[in-house]
C-alpha cells in the first residue's frame, strides 16, 4: 500500500512540475472583443459580415496563440443572409464555433515596442473541418497592448461548406477574411 502511495505522490509531483511553470506565469494577453470580418465578392452580389466578439489569447513566453468565435455572432447587413449563413451553409447548430490553435513562428521580443511581420502555424477549424494553415500577419507591440492583424483567405471547399448551384453565382468560392485583435494583459 505504502508503495502505491509513494508512486502516487511521485507522479503527482511530476504532474505539478510539468504544468507548473505555465500556470505561474502572467504573460498571457487576451481579448474578448476582437473583430473578424469576411467578404464574399462575386459579380452578382457582395456579402460582408463582422464578428465583434472574437476571443483571442496569446502566451508571449511560448508564442502559443488561440482564437475562438461563435458563428452566430457574425452580424450581417440583413437578417435573411444571416439566417442562410447559419442555417444552410455553416450549420451553426451543429458547428457553433470557429477556432484557431497555433503558434507564432518567429521569436518576438514582446517587451520591445515595435511592428513585427510574423506568421502563425496551426489548426484552423470551421464547419467542423480542421485544416493546417500558416497565416501571415502583423504584430504590433505598444506598451501593454499587442495588436494582431491578419488578412487571409478561406476556400469553402476546404471546409466542406456546400453552396447549392442556384446561389453559386452569388457566393464566392474563396472568402476573404480580416482579423483585427487588440490583446491586453490577462490574469486568469
Amino acid at each position, binding site marked *: 500500500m505504502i508503495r502505491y502511495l509513494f508512486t502516487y505522490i511521485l507522479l503527482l509531483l511530476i504532474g505539478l512540475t510539468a504544468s507548473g511553470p505555465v500556470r505561474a506565469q502572467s504573460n498571457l494577453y487576451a481579448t474578448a472583443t476582437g473583430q473578424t470580418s469576411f467578404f464574399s465578392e462575386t459579380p452578382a452580389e457582395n456579402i460582408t459580415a463582422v464578428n465583434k466578439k472574437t476571443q483571442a489569447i496569446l502566451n508571449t513566453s511560448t508564442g502559443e496563440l488561440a482564437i475562438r468565435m461563435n458563428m452566430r*455572432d457574425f452580424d450581417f447587413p440583413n437578417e435573411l443572409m444571416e439566417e442562410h449563413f447559419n442555417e444552410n451553409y455553416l450549420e451553426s447548430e451543429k458547428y457553433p464555433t470557429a477556432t484557431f490553435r497555433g503558434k507564432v513562428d518567429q521569436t518576438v521580443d514582446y517587451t520591445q515596442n515595435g511592428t513585427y511581420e510574423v506568421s502563425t502555424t496551426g489548426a484552423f477549424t470551421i464547419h467542423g473541418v480542421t485544416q493546417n494553415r500558416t497565416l501571415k500577419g502583423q504584430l504590433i507591440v505598444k506598451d501593454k497592448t499587442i495588436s494582431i492583424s491578419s488578412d487571409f483567405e478561406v476556400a469553402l471547399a476546404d471546409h466542406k461548406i456546400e453552396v447549392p448551384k442556384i446561389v453559386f453565382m452569388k457566393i464566392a468560392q474563396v472568402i476573404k477574411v480580416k482579423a483585427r485583435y487588440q490583446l491586453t494583459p490577462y490574469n486568469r
Partner: protein
Amino acid sequence: MKLLRIIPFLLIPLLGAAQDDLLGELEKQAVPPTVPVVATFKSTRIINGHSVETVKRNHMDFRISHRFGRLNSGAYELFGLDQATIRLGLEYGVTDNLMIGIGRSSEQKAYDFFGKYRVLRQTTGARTVPVSVTLFGSTVIRTVRSFIPGEQERSFQDKLSYTGQVLIARKFSERLSLQLTPTYLYRNQPELAADDQLLLAVGIGGRYKISKRVSLNGEYFWALRDKSSAALPYYNSLAVGFDIETGGHVFQLHFTNSLGMIEKQFIGETVGTWGKGDIHYGFNISRTFSLDKKSKRAATDW
C-alpha cells in the same frame, strides 16, 4: 495489476495540461450566449395557414399560390389541372418582427390585408424561451358579384370578414417543428345563411426536415362548429406537402381538400373531403427580394 492501479494517477498531469491549453481557457471565459432559434419553418406559411415566421426587415416576399381542381374530377379535366384558383400576394417586413401583406384571391375575388407580429422568440442557451409566439390579424373583402339575377348586392360591411390567430410554435430539433394555432374567424355575412357569423377553430401544423433543403409539412384545422350546424356542407381542412428551399425561393407543393388560400376560405368554407377524393394539388412559390440599400453600402466599406 499494479499497472492498472497506477493508470488513474498517470492521468493527473494530463488534467493539469488540459487546463493550461489556451483554447480551453477561451472556452472557459466565453459568455454562454442566448441563442435565438431561427428557421422554425422555411416560409411564412406552413401550407395554407400562416407560420410563426415573418418576412425579414426591408424584404419583400412576392407569393404566387395555385390550387387546381379536384383530383377526382377525372381524366377529362386532367385530374383538376384544367381549373386553377390563384392568390397573388405582396408581403413586406417592416421590422424583423413585424410584417404586413396584401393579397388577391380569384376565389370570391377576395382582397386580403394582414399584419403579423412576433411577440416572443424561442431561444436556447443562457436564457431559455420554450416557444415562439406570433399574432396574426387579417381583414378580407370579397368583391365577387352575386350570380343570382335580381339578388341585391351585399353592402360593403357585409363583404367583410376578420381573422385573428395566435401562432404558437416550437422547434423541437433541427428537423421537427410543431405549431398550434387557435383561430377566431368572424364573417359579417357568412356565405350560407345557416352558418354562424363567429367560427372558432384550432389548427395544428408541423414540418419534418428530410434533407437540408426539403421538408415534409402537414396541417389540420379543426373548426369548432355547433352540433346543430351539422347540415352545413363544410369539412375540416387537411393539407400535406413538401417545402423545397433554394436561396431566396421557397417552393411549396402540396395536396389539400381546401380550394381557398385565405383563412376565411380554408378554415371556414372547405367543401371538399379527403374521403371522397376531393383533393386539390397546389403550390406556393415565394420569392424574397431584399430592398435593403445597407448591404451594398456595407460592401463598399470593406
